[in-house]
């Protein structure tokens, strides 16, 4: 069979990093190729080269035996390459139809945009993507899942032979993921060549036909999925075997540390009550959008609950701001690292010490020596890789940024640490490191809350699990009674429907 | 060594002051050993003038003759100049007494105040509503003239001053203020603009509103700028003193002071071809009477200033 598109000898450097060196890839019609690699292996860079956003330093792209170049995103689309990118690339203030057709809107004979045709075409595309809503509404009025469908419709709006999906399931719930699988099957049947990027192996084994593995910007293996096992892939990716994936230590669970009772918020959540004990890892499971982050953020004073009480070590606490939460010993490692976690533009050591300044300084005046000492201590514990401590965090790779963010919170010496999706978008090697670290924290007597949407992670790491659905607690499970099925049922609300609640 | 006399104006580029500069240069040529530095800020602000004055002090000029943007704000800077031995006079628009040695009025304030209302009244035998369009609300000379005008208003029966508005010596603002006047006072018969910027803008606004013949624009203006409006009938007549003479006289007085003349009440200072000026109790003196321009003579003077 002839490939739909071929890349040969592609290299790409950024100042200080060689993101891709001499990699090759071929995508075949009617087949799904999975692209696998650690964080920073160069996967997204390759996607951007394929879609005209970056230009390769060397190498050729070949479509139908012809050498082509993609100087802009538009030229790639014209050559039949389309992509759902890792980042959302949509426009909140524009209508759904316009989001789909921005850059290649149908025009009338005066060269002006033909709105009527635009809306009609958009409607048709949405239907094909399995979505049925009015294309004239503004994007900002849609929920996250529908937005994702718009992104898919946009990818379908160009008549493409090659469809690229860069971690398309990261923001989708169970049901939508299954719809996406169905769509991929249909595209396959239409003879499209599909490049599928994911860190989730269950997905890869479910839908991919072939695989390609990158490590540090080089190609380290390719072949048919049918010929490999998960362990083989991991070994290719990381260059070694990864030991126990969920290194949960047995810890003696102590007395209650944090007790939350009757937390509620007018629109986001209600009736949240639970206890957290010393040395415990409490998992919070739920589908994306279940309101877990919202609730956790209310615990540290970002959003204000309308009712409810928190007791820490038996004392009632009122927390109005993150500053107060930190002082009380409750810290939150946020989900969105780029927006809420790292302060890009500031040096590593200043990032680490920001919440602990009151300890490193003397009566309001900075003591740089103390700051460096603190930063050195915690970054060393997390095995940070960096050239120096006064380097801008923005120059670090994603995984190392996450380490700086975690170091920042640990340096405050908390009693309770809340980790929101701590391994989201992190490769398998770093993931194991984070998990090992979490276990160690618990064994040192810290109490940990771990928010995660990944069932294996929840089952592997938690002593107890609370499941949330639509802002309420939908189930509580001990480690002993935990099964994947119970979690999914509780999260999707299958039991409550039996009880016959009007919907 | 040449004597350095600085002619500081409200802002560079205003036709009136350019003409005054001409006069100052004429005086310098006549005197022979004088260099005139013509300077000023770019817009009519006191802070700008202070910066200019500071740099003149640094250059150790011999005299500063200033037309002030603000009566009071320049005083400290000018005092400092006098402390350093620089002769300071104000002309056209005055500085408070303690900030200068003498002030040269282009004409006596009372005469000007009377003149501007008389120009309006002469064309209104039956009387009627008139309004005043002034320069900025902080301009010293305009305020003085308007005050003088109000003092003698009673002498002109039937003339009713209905409003005073401010165009800030900006063409567009003056234009809009005039439009406002035309709308608010349907019976308006004349607009008095004792400022060369305002009078032009007002005449333009009256023309645009189609009120030529109904509303007469008068006040103080430059013949070169007003010639067109006199011809169109928007302005029947206006007055001004000769700015060339004013710049000439200010330079001459400054020179006289440099040469040791003393400015005190009753003293007479030399003004070259303009004669002498006698100082009153406030150390102020008047140069000459304002001169009236109308359709008969405006063309001739338009060529000069």
């Amino acid at each position, binding site marked *: 069979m002839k490939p739909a598109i071929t890349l040969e000898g592609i290299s790409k450097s950024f100042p200080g990093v060689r993101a891709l060196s001499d990699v090759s890839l071929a995508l075949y019609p009617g087949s799904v190729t999975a692209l696998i690699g650690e964080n920073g292996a160069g996967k997204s860079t390759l996607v951007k080269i394929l879609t005209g956003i970056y230009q390769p330093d060397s190498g050729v792209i070949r479509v139908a035996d012809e050498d082509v170049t993609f100087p802009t995103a538009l030229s790639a689309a014209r050559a039949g390459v389309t992509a759902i990118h890792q980042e959302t690339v949509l426009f909140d203030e524009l209508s759904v139809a316009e989001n789909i057709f921005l850059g290649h809107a149908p025009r009338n004979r005066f060269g002006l945009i033909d709105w009527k045709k635009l809306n009609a075409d958009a409607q048709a595309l949405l239907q094909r993507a399995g979505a049925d809503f009015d294309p004239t509404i503004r994007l900002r009025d849609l929920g996250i899942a529908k937005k994702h469908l718009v992104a898919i419709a946009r990818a379908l709006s160009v008549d493409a032979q090659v469809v690229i999906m860069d971690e398309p399931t990261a923001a989708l719930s169970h049901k939508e993921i299954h719809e996406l699988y169905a769509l991929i099957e249909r595209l396959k049947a239409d003879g499209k060549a599909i490049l599928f990027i994911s860190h989730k192996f269950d997905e890869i084994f479910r839908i991919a036909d072939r695989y390609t593995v990158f490590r540090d910007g080089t190609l380290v293996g390719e072949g048919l999925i049918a010929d490999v096992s998960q362990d083989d892939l991991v070994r290719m990716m990381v260059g070694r075997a990864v030991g126990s994936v969920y290194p949960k230590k047995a810890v003696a669970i102590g007395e209650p540390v944090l007790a939350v009772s009757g937390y509620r918020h007018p629109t986001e959540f209600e009736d949240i009550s639970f206890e957290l004990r010393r040395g415990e890892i409490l998992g919070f499971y739920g589908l994306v959008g279940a309101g877990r982050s919202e609730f956790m953020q209310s615990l*540290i004073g*970002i959003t204000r609950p309308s009712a409810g009480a928190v007791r820490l070590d038996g004392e009632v606490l009122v927390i109005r*701001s*993150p*500053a107060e*939460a930190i*002082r009380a010993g409750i810290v*939150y490692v*946020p989900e969105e690292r780029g*927006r*809420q*976690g*790292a*302060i*890009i*533009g*500031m040096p590593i050591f*200043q990032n680490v010490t*920001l*919440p602990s300044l009151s300890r490193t*300084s003397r009566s*309001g*005046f*900075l003591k740089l020596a103390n700051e*460096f000492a603190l930063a050195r201590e915690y*970054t*060393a514990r997390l*095995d*940070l890789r960096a*050239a*120096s*401590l*006064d*380097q801008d965090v923005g120059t670090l790779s994603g995984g190392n940024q996450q380490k700086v963010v975690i170091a*920042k919170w640990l340096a405050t010496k908390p009693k309770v640490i809340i980790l929101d999706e701590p391994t989201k978008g992190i490769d398998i090697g770093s993931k194991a490191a984070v998990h090992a670290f979490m276990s160690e924290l618990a064994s040192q007597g810290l109490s940990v809350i771990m928010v995660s949407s990944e069932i294996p992670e929840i089952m592997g790491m938690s002593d107890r699990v609370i499941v949330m659905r639509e802002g309420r607690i939908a189930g509580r499970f001990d480690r002993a009674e935990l099964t994947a099925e119970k979690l999914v049922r509780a999260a999707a609300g299958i039991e409550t429907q039996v009880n016959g609640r009007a919907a | 060594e040449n004597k350095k006399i600085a002619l500081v104006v409200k802002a*560079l580029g205003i036709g009136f002051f350019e003409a005054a500069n001409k006069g100052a240069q004429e005086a310098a040529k006549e005197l022979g050993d004088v260099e005139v*530095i013509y*300077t*000023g*800020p770019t817009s009519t*602000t*006191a*802070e700008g003038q*202070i*910066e*200019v004055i*500071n*740099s003149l*002090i*640094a*250059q150790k000029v011999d005299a500063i003759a200033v037309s002030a943007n*603000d*009566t*009071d*704000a320049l*005083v*400290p800077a000018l005092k400092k100049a006098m402390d350093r031995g620089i002769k300071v006079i104000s002309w056209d628009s005055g500085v*408070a007494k303690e900030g200068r040695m003498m002030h040269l009025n282009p004409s006596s304030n009372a005469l000007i105040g009377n003149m501007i209302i008389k120009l309006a009244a002469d064309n209104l035998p039956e009387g009627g509503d008139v309004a005043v369009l002034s320069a900025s609300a*902080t301009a010293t000379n305009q*305020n003085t003239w308007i005050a003088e005008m109000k003092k003698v208003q009673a002498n002109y029966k039937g003339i009713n001053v209905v409003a005073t508005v401010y165009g800030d010596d900006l063409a567009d603002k003056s234009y809009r203020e005039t439009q406002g006047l035309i709308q608010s006072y349907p019976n308006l018969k004349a607009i008095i603009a004792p400022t060369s910027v305002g009078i032009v803008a007002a005449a333009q606004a009256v023309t645009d509103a189609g009120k030529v013949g109904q509303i007469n624009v008068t006040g103080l203006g430059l013949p070169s700028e007003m010639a067109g409006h006199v011809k169109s009938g928007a302005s029947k007549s206006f007055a001004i003193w000769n700015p060339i003479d004013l710049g000439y006289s200010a330079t001459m007085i400054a020179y006289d002071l440099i040469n040791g003349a003393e400015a005190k009440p009753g003293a007479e200072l030399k003004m070259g071809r303009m004669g002498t000026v006698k100082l009153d109790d406030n150390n102020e003196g008047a140069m000459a009477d304002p001169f009236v321009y109308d359709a008969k003579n405006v063309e001739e003077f338009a060529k000069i200033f």
Partner: protein
Amino acid sequence: MADAQISPRNIPDRLEGRGVRLLKSWEALLVVVAAAIFLGNSLASPYFLDPWNLSDATFNFTEKAMIAFAMALVIISGEIDLSVASIIAFASTAMGYAVQLGFDTPALVAIGLGVGLLCGTVNGLLITGLGLPSIVVTIGTMSLFRGLSFIVLGDQAFTGYPESFAWFGQGYVWWVFSFEFALFLLLAVIYGVLLHKTNFGRAVYAIGNNQTAALFSGVRVARVKFTLFLLTGLMAGLASICLTSRLGSTRPSIALGWELEIVTMVVLGGVNILGGSGTIPGVVLAALIMGMVTFGFGLLNVPGIVMSIFIGLLLISVIALPILWQRARRRLAH
């Protein structure tokens, strides 16, 4: 050396020494520019190198610089305050009004600073309380504060400030050093310490670089920003005292158009207009540069507007230079 980089447990604190960092900094560039202008001025005019003349020249920038220090902090935090010049006018009007009521110097100073703080509070409440964008809020309060002065004063002026009040704008501390210049130096030190040596300063940088992450890290974002607007208000009040004292009178049009000059000073000083970086020494140098440019050109009787062309060109080229330099270096490296 290479080994140190590989071993993860031995990350050095700093990659470059103090000297190298200083040399590469924006301030180094400004020092060169300042020196060049100083030299140019001394050659161009025989009057430039005179202590009294230089002392007079400082009045061209001291009041603006006082505000520029506080403005630098506001801009580093990612906001802007365009109402400062109007606060000067309003505070000056309040002081003038108080003079008419018979208040004396100490009360006037208190009123000037108090009104500045009050205006800062209004800005702060609108911006941090209601979460409105500072650029438009302060365009609004810019009209409002000066507008209030116009309502109070109309075409009038307040004069008759007490003798003792004149000291703030006209007095000398020692020899040629005026009170204003001494205050400028003192404030430079205070703001330098505040921004570079305290937790508060660190919070300002954190907010400017990533406001959300700063909030999550326990920085009291609203409180810090509110304080910054209070500080600019206070500095505008202080500048108002100095300027009013120097002019000896109050008109509503006082300090018209200063806001853009102050922002120019701050940006020329290397403060990133988008927030997140900048230093006080940079602003001090920019103030000196702008002061020397206006004074030097003034000595040559060059009109003010020509100076502003020069400042405009300086602003764009000084910002463009490092960008072009980096590009050229990258091209060479390839």
